[in-house]
């Protein structure tokens, strides 16, 4: 049974994801992969290379947004797509993760959509027996 995952959330103007995980680390991985899945076809990405990703915030919510915004930046500027993500270090203020993937070539690969940013809109992180979060992206 998959311990973490994501599904789309309806929004009139934009796109959201609801994500869950057994641990906070898995939640952040699920959110990252959920976002990547909006931008490109993760399944089609070949895990050729590894990249490290760092993000910083002042609480869980700001850290989640910073993490997601960094993934947007890596795709848009770094032209890198991830097939998988692993969170190596996570506390309330800092995250260090790594992921495997390949370079994005608009001539060869098909991006699914442009995501402008992760927003604070309806942002929720809840912990009951699992970690849950909801994030809306401005597209």
């Amino acid at each position, binding site marked *: 049974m998959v311990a973490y995952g994501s599904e789309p959330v309806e929004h009139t103007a934009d796109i959201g994801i609801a994500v869950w995980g057994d641990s906070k680390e898995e939640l952040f991985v699920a959110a990252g992969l959920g976002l990547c899945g909006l931008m490109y076809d993760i399944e089609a990405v070949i895990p050729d290379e590894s990249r490290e990703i760092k993000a910083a915030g002042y609480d869980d919510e700001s850290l989640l947004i910073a993490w997601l915004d960094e993934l947007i930046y890596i795709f848009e500027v770094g032209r890198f797509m991830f097939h998988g993500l692993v969170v190596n270090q996570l506390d309330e203020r800092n995250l260090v993760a790594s992921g495997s993937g390949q370079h994005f070539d608009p001539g060869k690969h098909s991006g699914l959509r442009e995501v*402008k940013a992760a927003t604070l809109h309806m942002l929720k992180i809840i912990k009951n027996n699992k970690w849950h979060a909801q994030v809306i992206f401005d597209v």
Partner: protein
Amino acid sequence: MERWHGLLTKKSDYLFEIPMSYKQGMRVPGLVFADEALLELALQDQALEQVVNVAFLPGIINASMAMPDIHWGYGFPIGGVAAVDIDSGVVSPGGVGFDISCGVRLMRTDLEAGREAGKLAGLLDALTALIPKGVGSTGPIKLSKTTIREVFVGGAKWAIRSGYGLEQDLRHIEHNGTHSGANPDKVSEHALHRGLDQSGTLGAGNHFIEVQEVSEIYDQETATAFGLFQGQIVIMVHSGSRGVGHQICTDYVKVMGAAVRKYGYDLPDRQLACAPLDSPEGRDYLGAMTCAANYALANRQCLGHWVRLACEKTFGAGSIKLGLDLVFDVSHNLATIEEHEIEGKRRRVCVHRKGATRAFGPGHESLPAEYKKVGQPVIIPGDMGRASYVLAGTDIAMQTTFGSTCHGAGRLMSRAQAKKQISGTELRARLERQGVIVKAGKMALLAEEAPDAYKDVSRVVDVCEGAGISKKVARLKPLGVLKG
């Protein structure tokens, strides 16, 4: 989505008021420009609660306003207008949006759609070849970390001096093509990098270039002043500041989040995060925002240049012979310092327009001579199946909405619902049966932008006219659309 059940008083057929007594903390009332039908749509999400929340902003003057195309946004509603006092007021990135200075320009020609029907497919092909568009696309303009700073400061002027377009275009762009006060030092490295390869690109999502026909003239004198005539081919470009704007908004939402605690603001929604205009955070945001605004102006100027090239190639004549000129270029996501008359006195204010367009009335000092008598052109993009509009600013807009009006139709349906209703391929076939040529990079994205996913822009502009905040000048029928 829960329906809004707040307090509303009908002031006229086109105006509703949310009294300050509705929620403790409102500094001004809410004013909603809508008719009963559009109000009913607005009540179906929490957009009006957002209008109420904006009324909490320190220094807000007169009212928190909602244009007829209002819908739910981030903190501010889309279609929100809020003016604040220059000395005591705050600036909020949420009142501008992620796509800073997203906007539209309209270019006119001397060509008649009826005569040139056979060449339209060729024009769309030429535009497809010339316009950089789509997810992850780049164009021929490659900026360095030095030259991007020139774009941030120069705006459309930079583009013209770099060979994109004509000097005469500047008089038909807001602020003559360059916003003053840009501070590139306040733009982060991330934002800078996002902009290096995106200059002169269309983007994706709801950005487009559309070839249109002027299908109806409502105000002959104003249409003539704008260079428009019945049956004419015109071309509309909708794009913004790309990743630069998105990143600047992201960066400053964080800065403002901390500023709210520092300045002790008690706001009902953290997405209204703001800082005093006259504070380091406020000045830094405005300096960076202005860079993004200039980047957007340069972007549309470059896109306009390639529109000219596509027309010259298709119709076998130069721009001057084709009568290819810029009608006007407007932004619909911006905060600008302006002077307005409030209770008989001229005051400097900062007007936030988020999904709202500037609509200065006749006689305004910023208008070029040829538009002074009739008012500022306002370009309203509709959806690709129905219509777009050209409006003009009015005295009533100057008196009641700080010279503002709607920006478009506003979405009605989520992207997922839109895709369930129709596929991109079916939609393209349907539009082509209607006589609209469609060039789209991604069918799935096309489906998300289906006409049925949007409110009817004709209703929106009728209400703007009914309320007196802009007047209808011309209706534009889509002939061909290019999307990323």
